[in-house]
């Protein structure tokens, strides 16, 4: 069976995890590294670099390197204009932000798809190495911040599709973390998960009972995280927003979690100075915590355990403030970077096996409503409703023989349309012609277990199913996603070809080096005379020259042909050299001295 993995698609780093024999683990690269930096770089030739390689290119080719793209998911250009100065890449687009890398513009889901493809590749390489019969990874559970709205969730699912993954489920990061925590302890009680990552903040309050992880409430800020701390530090230093400065402040931030002071560019900064600088950011997380408690109908003292997730919770001030609020020390026995991916893998395993031991019941973070007369929002599904959730509303016509009705769907807590997030505009068509006010169109809004909305409608007098035309306010249409999937196949092919070419060149180089080493051997003249046939050396030399000539080309097959020719031409020589060294070893002579 093909494999189903759990993926934490983070602002700063991404991870992939898998459950084997009931135990979740993070899949690492050969060097033991679990994190794939969520960075994508594309050079002039169109070669795509992802992860550490792309991260290195931040310092050499920043304008062609995209990072923190999660902050742009499901956003329009107007939403992100204010922070564009912090990024070295070009930000454009309109209803959907685009990121320019060189001469090509990508949407955030496309950039994220490069990261997802890298994770997929990593997992597939791991399964192949384990000798798994079927190592293909074609399905995944992907995590998102709990406070992500419909557009951001949909963008994440689109990214999965573009990467060639069937996204079985979108789950919330804090909930995923609780699932990973709940594994080893069969506990019950009320827990708070405080998740401060690179770009987003979430707080979720859960009740755990009989293996059911029931989210009572959630709140957060999808634009608050470690990135903001870095930006603040850069502003404080006043040395610009270059990538070298960014790298230095991130290092300083890490240092200050361990030490009382550190230096950036020759300037000393103390932890106290750092803490007073970032205090406003940490304070901004406390309001959502209080709101989540109020929504759950709980006092801080009702919380029995506090779990920390996300790299930014390593900052001592964050820990102190969380402890102050809940009146108990938070625990973080699991690696805060890895716990979300582990939880996603657990959820993937539940979906595949149908194991009913554990069940996650999550909520929708934002109320869903529709625009009514006077620009006021009428709420249909309240925030913190357990999902799946549905709600319905009756519509009618205002004019005789009207056959279509426009519906504007919004997400948010404010009363006025303009203060909420526009999700989509629907046009109900095919209403049978009737006098005004007579049609009764029942519109059903369904939020699925991913927290994503779908809408169906039916006219009750005639039982006519209405067709619905959806125009997402900040998203891609299905056709656009399909096109991106096709483009990405071409890209993937180009990518694959580039890799193969590099490998072919490497192999050619290895063979040339080995051969030239033999030819330079001090004993070569003697060997040639005693063992090699007429013109054998000349043949080898001419093949080396030929291979060297084609090596610079991009024609992989020709390079491979010449490499094979060199291998064939040197086969006899290699055997002779081998025999000599064996003979030398048997006669007690040092091989190296040959």
């Amino acid at each position, binding site marked *: 069976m093909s494999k189903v993995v759990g993926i934490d698609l983070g602002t700063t780093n991404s991870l992939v995890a898998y459950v084997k024999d009931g135990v979740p683990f993070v899949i690492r690269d050969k060097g033991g590294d679990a994190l794939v930096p969520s960075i994508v770089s594309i050079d002039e030739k169109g070669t795509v670099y992802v992860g550490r390689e792309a991260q290195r290119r931040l310092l050499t080719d920043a304008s062609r390197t995209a990072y923190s793209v999660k902050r742009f998911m499901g956003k329009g250009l107007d939403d992100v204009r204010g922070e564009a100065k912090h990024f070295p890449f070009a930000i454009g687009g309109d209803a959907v932000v685009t990121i320019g890398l060189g001469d090509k513009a990508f949407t955030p889901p496309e950039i994220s798809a490069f990261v997802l493809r890298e994770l997929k590749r990593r997992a597939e390489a791991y399964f192949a190495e384990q000798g798994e019969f079927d190592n293909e990874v074609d399905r995944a559970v992907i995590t998102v911040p709990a406070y992500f709205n419909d557009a951001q969730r949909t963008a994440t699912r689109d990214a999965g599709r573009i990467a060639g993954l069937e996204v*079985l489920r979108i789950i919330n990061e804090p909930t995923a973390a609780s699932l990973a925590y709940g594994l080893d302890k069969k506990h019950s009680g009320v827990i708070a998960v405080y998740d401060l990552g690179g770009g987003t903040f979430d707080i979720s309050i859960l009740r755990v*009972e009989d293996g*059911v992880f029931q989210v009572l409430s959630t709140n957060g800020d999808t634009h608050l995280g470690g990135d903001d701390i870095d930006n603040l530090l850069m502003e404080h230093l006043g040395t610009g927003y270059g990538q070298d400065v960014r790298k230095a402040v991130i290092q300083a931030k890490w240092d200050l979690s361990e030490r009382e002071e550190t230096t950036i560019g020759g300037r000393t900064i103390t932890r106290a100075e750092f803490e007073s600088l970032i205090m406003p950011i940490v304070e901004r997380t406390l309001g959502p915590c209080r709101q989540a408690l109020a929504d759950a109908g709980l006092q801080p003292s009702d919380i029995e355990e506090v779990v920390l997730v996300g790299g930014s919770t390593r900052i001592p001030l964050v820990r102190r403030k969380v402890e102050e609020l809940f009146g108990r020390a938070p625990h973080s026995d699991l690696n805060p970077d890895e716990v979300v991916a582990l939880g996603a893998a657990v*959820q993937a395993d539940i979906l595949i096996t*149908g194991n009913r031991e554990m069940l996650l*019941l999550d909520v929708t973070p934002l109320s869903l409503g529709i625009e009514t007369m006077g620009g006021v929002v009428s709420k249909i599904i309240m925030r913190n*409703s357990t999902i*799946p959730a*549905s709600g319905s509303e009756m519509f009618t016509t205002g004019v005789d023989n009207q056959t279509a009705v426009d519906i504007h769907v919004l997400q948010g807590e404010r009363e006025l349309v303009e203060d909420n997030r526009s999700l989509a505009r629907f046009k109900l068509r095919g209403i049978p012609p009737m006098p005004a006010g007579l049609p009764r169109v029942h519109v059903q809004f369904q939020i699925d277990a991913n927290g994503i909305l779908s809408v169906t409608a039916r006219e009750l007098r005639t039982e006519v199913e209405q067709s619905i035309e959806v125009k997402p306010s900040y998203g891609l249409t299905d056709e656009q996603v399909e096109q991106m999937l096709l483009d990405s196949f071409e890209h993937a092919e180009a990518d694959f070809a580039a890799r193969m070419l590099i490998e072919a060149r490497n192999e050619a180089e290895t063979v040339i080096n080995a051969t030239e080493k033999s030819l330079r051997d001090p004993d070569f003249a003697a060997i040639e005379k005693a063992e090699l046939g007429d013109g054998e050396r000349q043949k080898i030399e001419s093949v080396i020259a030929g291979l060297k000539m084609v090596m610079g080309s991009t024609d992989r097959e020709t390079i491979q042909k010449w490499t094979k020719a060199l291998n064939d031409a040197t086969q006899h020589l290699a055997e002779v050299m081998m025999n000599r060294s064996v003979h030398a070893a048997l006669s007690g002579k040092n091989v190296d001295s040959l």
Partner: protein
Amino acid sequence: MEARSERNFFSFLGLPRKLNLDVADLEQRYRALSRQFHPDFFYNASPAERRASLENTSYLNDAYRTLKNPVARIEYLLKLEGMTTTATAAPPSLLEEVFALNEELDEIREARANGASADDIRVRLERARKPIEEKRDAHEQDLKALSAKWDAAGDRQVLESLRERILERNYINNLLAGIEKELTA
């Protein structure tokens, strides 16, 4: 839609149409039914089964959310018994309070416009809020007593009284929200 009109939140959770319920029991029923219906367990099922799972779970979540809250529970029961709970005008029994409060709010707004101190306004608003809050507390007690009465006899007369109390209560909450708005203004 037809199938839906036959079932209701009480029957779906295997509960009698009563107003006093054991919350721990409700939670346990909710978890058990979630385990039965949740889409997580129907990933490999047929499209029809998946649709049913989604629909049942959505209905279950709605039922649980409604019945868990005592006031929503009463409102739901009233609706089930064919009574509307949307208020149109101020209930007659509250006219006196409404009148007094509106007068006081007008005076407070005027005082604010004339530059009264924030503390002063706060004190006056809190004083105006007190009798309304007392009224609401009295209503809570009434609702409890009436709920017990309904559970014992299933009397429609009791439902009518419950409906009046709920309408008054909604109105009181609107008044309190109005005061809250002035407080944060």
